[in-house]
Each structure stands twice: as structure tokens, then as C-alpha cells.
């Protein structure tokens, strides 16, 4: 399987000047190396300011790396711009990025014109992507009348317009209602079936868990974990989870449980007549007996251990 993306020791530094003209540097990416196999969904996760969007901008030729090398389908993103741009689509999202006075369709016509989409195919392709993102009814409205979610859909339509081999999706479901977000998530596997490669950044861990074949977690510009979602949950998560269901008295015992050595966090929820506790425990520390001692065996309906969710693993890695 060919590599759609290869990043080798990417470094990106942003320079600015203070009011006193003193040079100030921010290292956005440091020694970033990863590969993405063609025909897969690759998740790039991390907190705000981690360097996800900077990575996307470098790979989509909007930024040059300060050091290192990045390739898209073996073409260098610095020296072979034209070959890279032929193969990519970009979904950055946000309120900006369109001509407000123009309607959705005219915006797409403009982007089709600058992308040199085959003239005979333009109308058909625009109709296809507009329908795909559910904007057929709003296609003739000026974009400055669109809601945030509609603009986001139009971003997706633009990214798909040229039918690219590699699609960068930077938080594509942000601002979209749950039904629309589900439609978009359902679209991703279909795109992969058609041979597309997708690099996805998202804050929704369930989305990453559901969609991604491979995930890389970055924090402060460096990789902190990588692997399949299962590998990350098992190997990199510093916690394990114990789910306890008790009949009564959970509220009074939360503090006591939190005080047990090895317990990171205790969350309480009610489920009808029973009470459910989700206890985050440092991986490898045995606490079940101590938990049983707190409640008494007669009070415990069930106590099971499970692997953390991707969100729980992510939080334990990042924090």
C-alpha cells in the first residue's frame, strides 16, 4: 500500500516581534514524523494549540515547514506544489472562506474555476456535492444569510468539489447539528471505499474512535501517542476504568473512594433506582477490594473493569 502522506522530522516555528522589536519564537511543531497509508482514515488529535491545523496547513501547501520534509503521494509539499495541489482537497471550516454576497452555487462555481475543474463537468459536480451536503434548497441563497452549520456544509462541499485523492478535514462536524454530523460521518467510509484517503482532525473522540484506522495524538507540537484506536486505549492510556453499580449510598461514598490510593477520579450518575460510579484508576493499581470494603458486598450490584474510551485515554495522556 502506498503512503499518501509522509512527514519526516517536521519542525515549524512562527516568529513575531514584540513592541520593542524583540524577536519572539513559537515552536508549533517539533520533530513530527508519521505516515498515512493511502485509502485510510487518519486521525490527528490533540488539544487546542497542539499543532493539528499547522500540520494540515503544511501538508496542504499553505505553509512551509521550518525544517524536515513532508510528502503527499511522494510529491514534496515545498518543491512540487502543483503535483500536491492536484491531489488534495481542504476543509478548514469556520465562518469565513466564502464570498458572502454570492450564493452557495456561485461560490462553488468560483472555486471550480480557480481549480480548473473540467468545464463539461462543473455543473454536474456542483449539483452532486451540494446535494451530498444537504444544501440543495439553500444553494441559491447568499452565503451571508447562511447559518454556521450551513457554512460548514458548504466548506465540505468545496473540499469535495475536485474529487481529490486526499482530503484534509479540519474539524468538519463542528457547528453542524447532530443529524448533519451523522450524515457527514457516514460519508467518510464511503469516500474511503472509493479510494480516498482522509486526514481528520477533531475534538470529538467518539468520531475519531468510530472513523479512524490510525490515530496520532499530538500535544505542544510533539507526538505523544500513536496507533489504532484500540492500541491507544490499551497501551497509552494511563488509566483503567472500573464501573460499579450500587443499590444505595453512593453519594456519601464518592469522597471516600476518591481518597483511595490509585484512584484518579470518581464520577457518579443515577440510573433509575441504582447508582452508577465510574472510577478512573491508575493502570496497574489494584483497588477492587478497597472499593468493596467501602460499599459492602451486599450493596454492590456489579463491578466490572473495562478499557478506557478513547476520550478517557486521551485525557489521561494529555493531562
Amino acid at each position, binding site marked *: 500500500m502506498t503512503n499518501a502522506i509522509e512527514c519526516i522530522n517536521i519542525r515549524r516555528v512562527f516568529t513575531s516581534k514584540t513592541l520593542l522589536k524583540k524577536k519572539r519564537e513559537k515552536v508549533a511543531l517539533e520533530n513530527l514524523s508519521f505516515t498515512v497509508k493511502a485509502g485510510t482514515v487518519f486521525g490527528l488529535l490533540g488539544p487546542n494549540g497542539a499543532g493539528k491545523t499547522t500540520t494540515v496547513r503544511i501538508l496542504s501547501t499553505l505553509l512551509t515547514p521550518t525544517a524536515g520534509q513532508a510528502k503527499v503521494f511522494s510529491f514534496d509539499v515545498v518543491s512540487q506544489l502543483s503535483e500536491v495541489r492536484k491531489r488534495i482537497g481542504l476543509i478548514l471550516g469556520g465562518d*469565513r472562506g466564502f*464570498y458572502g454576497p*454570492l450564493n452557495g452555487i456561485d461560490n462553488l462555481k468560483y472555486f471550480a474555476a*480557480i481549480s*480548473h475543474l473540467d468545464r463539461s463537468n462543473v455543473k454536474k459536480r456542483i449539483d452532486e456535492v451540494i446535494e451530498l451536503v444537504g444544501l440543495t434548497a439553500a444553494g441559491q441563497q447568499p452565503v451571508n444569510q447562511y447559518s454556521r452549520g450551513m457554512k460548514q456544509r458548504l466548506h465540505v462541499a468545496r473540499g469535495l468539489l475536485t474529487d481529490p485523492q486526499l482530503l484534509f478535514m479540519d474539524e468538519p462536524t463542528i457547528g453542524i447539528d447532530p443529524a448533519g454530523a451523522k450524515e457527514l460521518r457516514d460519508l467518510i467510509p464511503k469516500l474511503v471505499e472509493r479510494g480516498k484517503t482522509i486526514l481528520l482532525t477533531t475534538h470529538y473522540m467518539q468520531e475519531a474512535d468510530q472513523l479512524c484506522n490510525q490515530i496520532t495524538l499530538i500535544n505542544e507540537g510533539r507526538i505523544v501517542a500513536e496507533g489504532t484506536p484500540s492500541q491507544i486505549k490499551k497501551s497509552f492510556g494511563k488509566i483503567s476504568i472500573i464501573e460499579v453499580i450500587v443499590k444505595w449510598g453512593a453519594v456519601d461514598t464518592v469522597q471516600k473512594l476518591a481518597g483511595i490510593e490509585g484512584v484518579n477520579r470518581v464520577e457518579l450518575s443515577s440510573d433509575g433506582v441504582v447508582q452508577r460510579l465510574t472510577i478512573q484508576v491508575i493502570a496497574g493499581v489494584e483497588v477492587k477490594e478497597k472499593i468493596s470494603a467501602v460499599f459492602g458486598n451486599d450493596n454492590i450490584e456489579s463491578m466490572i473493569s473495562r478499557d478506557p474510551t478513547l476520550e478517557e485515554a486521551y485525557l489521561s495522556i494529555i493531562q
Partner: protein
Amino acid sequence: MVNRLFDGIVSFTQQSYLTYRGLFGWLNWQGYISNVLLRPVVVVLTFSLIGRFAVGLGVAQRFALGMAVLGMFFIAMNGIAQSYFFDRQTGTIKYLFITRGNRISNYLSRGICHLPNAILAFITGIFTAWLVVYINFEWFNWGYLILVVMVIAISMTMFGQFIGVLVLITNNWVHIAGLTNSIMMVLTGVIIPIGRFPGPLYEFAKLLPMTNGLLVLGFLFDGAEFSQLYGLLLRELITGFTYLILGYLGFIYFERHVRQTGELH
């Protein structure tokens, strides 16, 4: 080959039309009427009346002609400058920079639709001049007038592209446009004939667009033979073209610069 050329023309036309509609802030009836139609009237009227009552009819006619031509510059330059400014402000310029499209086509498409507005502004201004200061068209050669006005309008549009790229680079429309308008009013012979300038200022004025075109127009109205004015008109066109090229180089530089610095983001 022919197909590719035709595709290129269609793409250029679409870019020109859609960026014009999407980025020209005065493309609504209030903005358009105020700036393209009424403003030239007010400006020509103001300077005509000042000239007529402060000095005399001859000077007033010269002022009126100069202001009618300056009106072309105002609308072309501001329209194009807005296009570049709003392209950056709305965040659309970065989507241009990830395409492998023809950058010459992208660059030129931002100016072309403002050319008719420049001509319309001149027509409005010169009509006002005819009404207020009795500019005489009876013996005039309309063919030469149309040619000269077209050359000046094209030169203004080309210069507007240069200013537009400056606006793109500095991300500042109002100050750049204001400064340029002032420089053009003072130093191109619109009010003060450039022959009255001291040496270095005279040479600088000749490097500006509109200076040579305005001289040609003035000489024509004074009854000069057009055959004596080819050189000046050609110089006007070459001046505009030089700024067009400088603007294009600036456009390419800007794309490379923002890729290095991340300034756009």
C-alpha cells in the same frame, strides 16, 4: 490546444465576474450610484466652480477635465483595492493559494470588471464639465477622444492592480487608497500643470499613470494634432503596464511570503 485556451478564457471570465460580484463592496445601488455616478459629478462641479469663480473659465475647464479623469482613477483603484482587501479579510485568498491555477489569470481577473466603471465615471464627469464650464466638443474628433479615454482607463485599471496588491500585502485599504488618491490629485497635473513643478518632482510626476494621458487630453482640447501626441499616449500605456507587472510580482511575492511566515493564518 484550442480547447485549453477556451477553457482558460471561460475560467478567467468566471473568476472576473464572480470576484467582482463577491468582493466589490460598492456593488449595491447606494454604493454604485454614490461612487460611480454621483461622486464624479460632485467633484467636477466643486472644482469647476472654484476654478470659474476664483480664477477664470479657462482654468475651470482644465480643472474639470482633470477631475473627470481623476474620477476614473478613483473608481478603478478603489474597486480593485476593495477586491484584494476583502479577499484577505474574508479568508478566501488562502483557498486560491492551494490551487494550481494560473496566477496571471487569477491576478488579472480581479481588475478587469472595474474598467467599465472607470469609463462610466469619466462620462458622468465630462458631462458635468460640459454643463458647468462649457467644454466645447463641436470640433472635437470623437474617435481620438474615445481612444485616449480608453488608454487612460486601461492605464488606471492596471495601476489599480498595483495598488490592490499593496493593499493585499499591507492588509490596509483605507489608508493606502486615501494616500494614493491624494498623490494622484496633486502630482499628475489634475490641478497644477506639471510644467510648473521643480525638476525632481516633474520627473516623478511623469512616472505616475494618468500624467501623460491627461497631457494628451489637454492638448487635444487645445486643438493639437493627434499625430504629435502618439508618444505621450504610448508612454501612458507603458507606464500603466509597468505598474501592472510590478503588481503581479507583488502578488507572487505575497503568496510566497505568507507560506513562509504563516501571516495569513
